[in-house]
Each structure stands twice: as C-alpha cells, then as structure tokens.
C-alpha cells in the first residue's frame, strides 16, 4: 500500500521529467530546423496571421475591459486615502507589467494554442505527419517552426495593443465615469510608468508566446489514440500552457524587476 503510493508519486515525477525532456528536445529540434534553408516564409506568415491578426479582436476586448475594471476597482481603493490621481498609473503599470502579457497569452493559448494541438494531433492520428516523413519533408521544419516563430513574434505585438487599449479603457472609466482630472491622470501615468515596464512586459509576452506554441505543437505532435486522443491533447495543451505561463510569469517577473 505504502509502496504503491510512493510508486505513484515516483511515476508522476518520472512522467513529468520525461515529458519536460521531450518538450525540450522538440524545442532544440525547432531551433535547429529554424535556421535550415529553405525558409518557408509563406507558412510563417500564415501562422502569424492565425496567431496574431485573428486574435486581435479578442485581445482588444480583453484589454479594454481589463483596464476599465482595474480603474474602477483601484478608484474605490484609492479613494479611501484620497489618492484618486494614482488610478491612471496603477492601471498603466498593471497593464504593461502584468496583465497585458499574461491575459493576452492566456487568450491566445485558448484560441491558437488549442488549435495548434488539435491540428497537429489530427495530422498525427490520420498519419499525415508520417506521410511527410515519407516525402522527405521534415514535419518539425514544416509544421512546428512556423508556429513557434509566429507565437514568439506575435505575442509582443498583441501585448502592446492590449496595453494600449487597456490604458484607454482605464482612462475612459477614470476620467469619463469617475471624474478624475484628465491632466493629472495622464501626467501621473507618464511620471510613474517607465520605459522598462513596457519592454519587460513585451519580453515576457515573447516568452509566453514560445511556451504556448511549443506546448501546443508538442501535444499535437505526439498525440496518440484517435479522435479521443486529439481531444485530450487539445485540453492538455491549453491547461499545461496556461499553468506554465502563470508559473513562468512569476519567475520572469522576479528576474526582471
């Protein structure tokens, strides 16, 4: 009984390390294949459109309302000690440093990460990936590299848009609804927010983009078990990517600020 329990724990740890190792191998292979000719630019652009452009609306909505609700909440807190003028800087700092990158990444994980896992998983179970091997086209080069590149490049762009619309959302609520003085609101924001806050947020976003595309591709690439397996791979891809993003967010933040 006791031994069984310990075995379960041990097995879980071994599985985790195994899986982590396989993700790392996939990552290494991606990097290696990234620099091998020919660059499949059109495939990269297609993925960029899918990950970036098509996520624009959802990111704008998320960013705007996050900024707005943040202003509303911060206002009620700051009003207790008459520091309403700091609402703007609070919203801007939170958006650029934390909420912009994290929320964007989570939204893109849900939209594009899951799609990557499902797509590649279906190709795996319908043996299309094996077919690629037989055609001497490396499936990592053909399928994984464009997705990872698109994730790393597009997430910062989406994040800066999310930051911007979030600040605008906060401004609308703070100045429009809560009657905080517009000049003070903007001035305080500019005074307190630093360039580093924005850039570190973008670096974080790039890291999250790597995580979500890599996890999505990995889960899809190694799918087994037919249609059910594809569904499981998709779910796992979203869960693992989201959790990894939140955990790595802590360590990235600790390292950066």
């Amino acid at each position, binding site marked *: 009984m006791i031994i069984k329990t310990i075995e379960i724990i041990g097995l879980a740890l071994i599985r985790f390390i195994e899986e982590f190792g396989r993700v790392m191998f996939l990552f290494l292979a991606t990097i290696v294949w990234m620099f091998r000719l020919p660059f499949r630019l059109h495939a990269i652009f*297609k993925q960029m459109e899918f990950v970036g452009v098509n996520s624009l609306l959802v990111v704008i909505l998320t960013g705007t309302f996050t900024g707005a609700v943040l202003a509303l909440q911060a206002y009620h807190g700051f009003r207790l000690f008459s520091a309403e003028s700091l609402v703007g800087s609070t919203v801007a700092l939170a958006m650029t440093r934390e909420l912009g990158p994290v929320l964007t990444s989570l939204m893109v994980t849900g939209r594009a990460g899951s799609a990557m896992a499902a797509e590649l998983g279906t190709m795996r179970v319908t043996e299309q990936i094996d077919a690629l091997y037989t055609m001497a086209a490396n499936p990592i080069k053909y399928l994984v590299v464009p997705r990872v590149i698109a994730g790393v490049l597009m997430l910062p762009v989406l994040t800066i848009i999310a930051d911007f619309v979030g600040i605008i959302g906060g401004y609308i609520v703070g100045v429009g609804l809560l009657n905080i003085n517009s000049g003070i609101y903007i001035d305080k924001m500019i005074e307190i*927010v630093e360039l580093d806050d924005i850039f570190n947020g973008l670096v974080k976003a790039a890291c999250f983009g790597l995580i979500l595309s890599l996890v999505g591709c990995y889960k899809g690439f190694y799918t087994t078990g037919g249609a059910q397996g594809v569904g499981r791979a998709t779910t796992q891809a979203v869960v693992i990517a989201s959790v990894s993003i939140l955990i790595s967010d802590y360590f990235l933040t600790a390292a950066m600020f």
Partner: protein
Amino acid sequence: MTKLSVEAKVGVFVVIGMIILAYMSTRVGRIQYTGDRGYEVYAYFDSAEGIVEGGPVEIAGVEIGHIKDISLEAGKARVVFQINPKVRIGEDTEAVIRTKGVLGDKYVELVLGAPNARPVKSGGRIERTQSPANIDNLLKQLSSIGTDIKEITQSLSGVLGGKEGEASLRNIVDNFRQASDQLREMVVSFNQITEKINRGEGTIGKLINEEETVDNINTTLTSINDYLQKEERFRTYVDYRGEYLFDSNDMKSYLSLRIQPKEDKYYLLQLVDDPAGKKKVTETTTTTGGGSPSTEYREEIEKDELKFSAQIAKRYYNLGLRGGLFESTGGVGADYYFLDDRLILSLEAFDFDPDRNPHLKFKADFTPLHYIYITGGFDDFISDEGNESVFVGAGLRFSDEDLKTLLSDAPIPNTR
C-alpha cells in the same frame, strides 16, 4: 475590393503594434534629458536620502536638469547634476533636497542667489547645500525635549507637590512675613534716628541743622573740587528746583548738592522746603504709681522746618538706584534715564510708617537747555492723608565748572 494577402495583413498588424509601442515609449520615456546635453555641476550633501539618479533638478518649480550620479565620498553624498545649457546658475546658488507630493518624492531644488553672482562653470561645485530634514531625527529630538520637560515637571512636583512641599512653601511664606515685620521695625527705628538728627541732637544733627555747616560744607566741597579738578570724572552739581503743587496751591523748593566721584555713582545732599511742613512726633511715657507705664504720641506739624535729604545713588546703564534720607525720612528711589540723560523718570518711596501708606513720588525731569530743566509729576499719590498732588516745576542745575565762578562772585542763595 481585393482581398488583402496574408503578408499584408500581418504587415499592417505589426506596423500598428510598432506605432503604439513607439508612441507609448516617447510619452513615458525621459527623452528630453537623455544624452549629455548641458553641463555638469556637483555638490556635497550630508544626506542624499530619497533622491535617485535621473531624478529632477528644478529652479522655481521648472525642471532644468536631472541628477546624473550619486556617490559616496568621504562620508558625504556627492551628487552630480546635469543642467540645461541655457540655464546659468551663480556661485552662491544653494542646492536643497525637497519633498513633493503625497508620496514624498524627493527632488533637488536650486535656490539662486544674487543675480550678478559669477556663474558656476561646467564641472564646478555648488558650495551651499541643504539636506532633507529627517523625520526620524526630528521625532527623536522632540521626544528628548519631551523627556526633559517631563523631568523638570516631575522634579518641580517633587519639590512643591505633596505634604512636604506644602509645608516648605508655608515655611517660606512665614519667613517672609517675619522678615517684613523686622523691616518695619527697622524703618521705625530709622525714623527715630533721623528725627533725632533733625532736632539737632548729636553730632550729625548739629552738623546738619546749623546754617553755618551748610556754608562750611559748600566751601569745603569747593576746595575739594578744586583739588580734584584734574580727576576727570569728579563732578559736583548744585541744583535748585521749585515744584508748584496744584492741590495745596503751594511751592515746594529743593536745594541740592550732588557730588559725583564717578560716572555711575553720586552722593546727594538736599534741603527741602516743604509747605506741608515737617511732622514731629513726640513720645511721652508717663508712669503713674502702681499702674503700667502709658505711652502717648503727639504729632506736631512744624511749618517752618526744613527737611533734609542725604542719598547715595548708583547707576547701572540707564537705571539709577538711590537710597538714604528722603525729606528727613528713610527711603529708596529709582531713576530711568532717556534721551542721553535729558529725560529722567523717577520714582521715590520714603516715609515708611507702619500706620500710614509710604510717601510715593513720581516725577519726570526734562532738560531742554544746559542749565534749565522742567519737571512734572505726582507727589504722594497713595497718601491716605489727602496730601496727593500733581505738580509742575522748573529748576536750575550748575555743574562745578559753572559753580566756581558762581561761588566766588555770588552769595549762596538763602533757602529760607
């Protein structure tokens, strides 16, 4: 409408992102003072607490530069400022670390000195600095002051409070009362002595009461004066003054001789012709057989008697104090000198008698000319015998210089 290619969509998307990033960066970034525009000056602060590199440097609330570097040098904070080249600061500028906003952000304010001061060169030093007031230190000082005050009040309450303190306070009051009783007795006996002198009893009495003595004294003093003439500070004044008393419609006259051996000390001898006359109290003790001795006091007013004053005076800066005989009774007086001694306010208190209020006199003497002065005041103003009177008068005062000629040519005025 042609459909946008994938590449175009991505391109537009990325460009939008870049534009937003560029816009936010320029708004947030401190690009006005990046680079090495302007010149550097430095200053030493006792404490650079709260200021940060890149923080603002202001003159009159206008940002004119930023803090470039903060380092420690010989226990002091060496702060380097980068200042806008258009702004010139003088050598007497003071750099002050100030606080702004609710959150207590620190910044450096330059307080300019005189407008024509020599400007500080690039790389020069601002000599005058002022570090921020440390709230901790302030509180520490305040609390130590509080402790001191507490100690004082505690020791005070230890001395004054409680039964012991009450007892000692009562003791002090008792002692004071005894002392004043003794003083009164002293005054009474002093009065008796002066009366004896007045009556011409004893050597002093004879000396003073006989007319020729006055002449003798005067001539003696003149010769002393002649002898001591080289002594610069030795002065003698002869002074006559008349006071017209409004209430009694009478004239009170004074003839004084003032011998001043030192600038701050003089002796005053004075004859007073008082219309109120001199009071004379005779004490008669009769002993009838077997009975206890009974004492009878009799007051006489001698209208024609002269009163006599002999005082010693000492001066401290503008304040003069006098003591001795005032109109044949013991007394004290104080003078206050104004306007190079040309205006003198005096208060005299004499004739202390346990049964009556003392004789108080207030007067103001003003000397507009060299010899002549005018006077005015209120005599005996707390009298309980109805003697109080406002008076005005005038007087003549001659110093020994004038006196010499006067004495040789003119006779001494008869005061009678």
